[in-house]
């Protein structure tokens, strides 16, 4: 994780842009795409200059992690009486001096919004303003990964916007009279489903789409139980699911543990009679780490051959062939 924090002085045009430059350096360090860097710079510079132009002082904080850049710019300043008005292109309260320097076109906030994947602003008159935005470093790949599990029934949407307010990650919006869910922001927490008064949102696989289940064993991942919150005991979720008519409801945890045990048992039992090849690509998937940390660890493993990455494929095949021929 990379985090930078910068203080910004109101009226200090001389140093305006310094915070954005440090954000740029961070982005370049992780090899971000130039187009992404450019979008980030438009948003960061606009947000930074807003503090210089309008506020007494402020701070820019940027965090770079999990493939996204989160920026928060908080200021102590006059605040904004009408947020809707300032996010409209062309509206500006910049001073004559700022305008002379090329600022105050009334495009700052619209520019931040346009160049970010998530944008939020809150303000208290007489106290200050907080602008935050997120830019995804690889929007395409995030779009593809993990679709959300919501089912949307547009006809039922009465545009109460409660889903939009309930969503903790700002993944829901109502556009042209129907709810839309942004895959890359949705965490499947189901808060929007609970908030919708007209049932326009539901889980993609609900009870009415389940096949006859009398003989079926339902397998649930432990991670999926998180959505019910700390107040609901996992046992209760499992028993409610069982009540729907499944023969049994199990957590995948049992199988994962069994698989782990089997791998270890097999390795011990068979090692004397047959060659055992441990591919760490597989074992690390089930949470086992065979990688020796020290030469002593390696000696204790009594292995016939140990290859660390990167392995020349030819050398690997030759060695495996020799071991199998023994």
């Amino acid at each position, binding site marked *: 994780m990379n985090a930078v924090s910068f203080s910004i002085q109101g009226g200090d*045009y*001389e140093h*305006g*842009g310094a915070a*954005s*430059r440090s954000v*740029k350096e961070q982005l370049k360090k992780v090899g971000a795409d*130039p187009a992404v*860097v*450019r979008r980030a*710079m*438009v948003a960061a*510079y*606009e947000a930074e*200059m807003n503090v210089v132009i309008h506020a007494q002082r402020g701070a820019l904080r940027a965090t770079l992690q999990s493939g996204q850049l989160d920026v928060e710019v908080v200021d102590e300043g006059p605040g904004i009486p009408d947020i809707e008005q300032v996010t409209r292109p062309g509206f500006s309260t910049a001073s004559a001096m700022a305008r002379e*320097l*090329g*600022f105050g*076109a*009334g*495009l*700052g906030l619209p*520019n931040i919004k*346009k160049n970010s994947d998530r944008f939020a602003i809150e303000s208290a008159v007489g106290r200050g303003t907080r602008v935050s935005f997120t830019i995804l470093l690889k929007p395409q790949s995030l779009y593809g990964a993990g679709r959300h599990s919501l089912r949307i029934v547009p006809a039922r949407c009465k545009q109460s916007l409660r889903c939009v307010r309930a969503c903790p990650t700002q993944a829901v919006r109502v556009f042209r009279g129907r709810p839309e869910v942004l895959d890359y922001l949705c965490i499947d927490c189901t808060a929007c489903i609970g908030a919708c008064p007209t049932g326009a949102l539901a889980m993609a696989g609900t009870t009415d789409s389940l096949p006859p289940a009398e003989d079926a064993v339902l397998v649930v991942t432990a991670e999926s139980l998180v959505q019910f919150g700390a107040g609901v005991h996992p046992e209760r979720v499992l028993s409610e699911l069982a009540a729907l008519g499944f023969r049994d409801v199990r957590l995948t945890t049992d199988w994962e543990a069994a698989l782990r045990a089997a791998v270890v048992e097999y390795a011990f039992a068979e090692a004397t009679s047959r060659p055992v090849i441990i591919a760490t690509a597989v074992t690390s998937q089930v949470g086992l780490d065979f990688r020796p940390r020290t030469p002593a660890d390696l000696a204790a493993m009594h292995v016939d051959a140990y290859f660390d990455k990167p392995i020349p494929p030819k050398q690997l095949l030759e060695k495996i062939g020799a071991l199998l021929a023994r």
Partner: protein
Amino acid sequence: MRLDEVARRIGAQVLAPGKAVSIELEQVYAGDRMSDLLNAAGDHMLLVSNLASTHLLRVAELMDIPGICLVHGQVPDAAMLRAATEHGTLLMASPFGLFETCGRIYQLLAAEIRSTP
């Protein structure tokens, strides 16, 4: 056309050569509104501006704009020159006004496009 050649052909004086003299010019932006500039910025751009200010350089640096052309033969202050040299932004000054400078660059590029088969 390379940035340094553009400077030579329009009669502009190169004040800081930058590291970008050999960059091919693909885009020209003339205007003083920062927000518009941010939106238009590109890494093959020459920025033509009335504003001889360090902000302009800061924006050029942030947005990877390789060259800036000042107009009316403006001589930038020492801070701007130093900043341009530090960041390697090409800084030139045209003896003409904004309108005429742009006109000359336009003619150059139009002629280049016409002569390209």
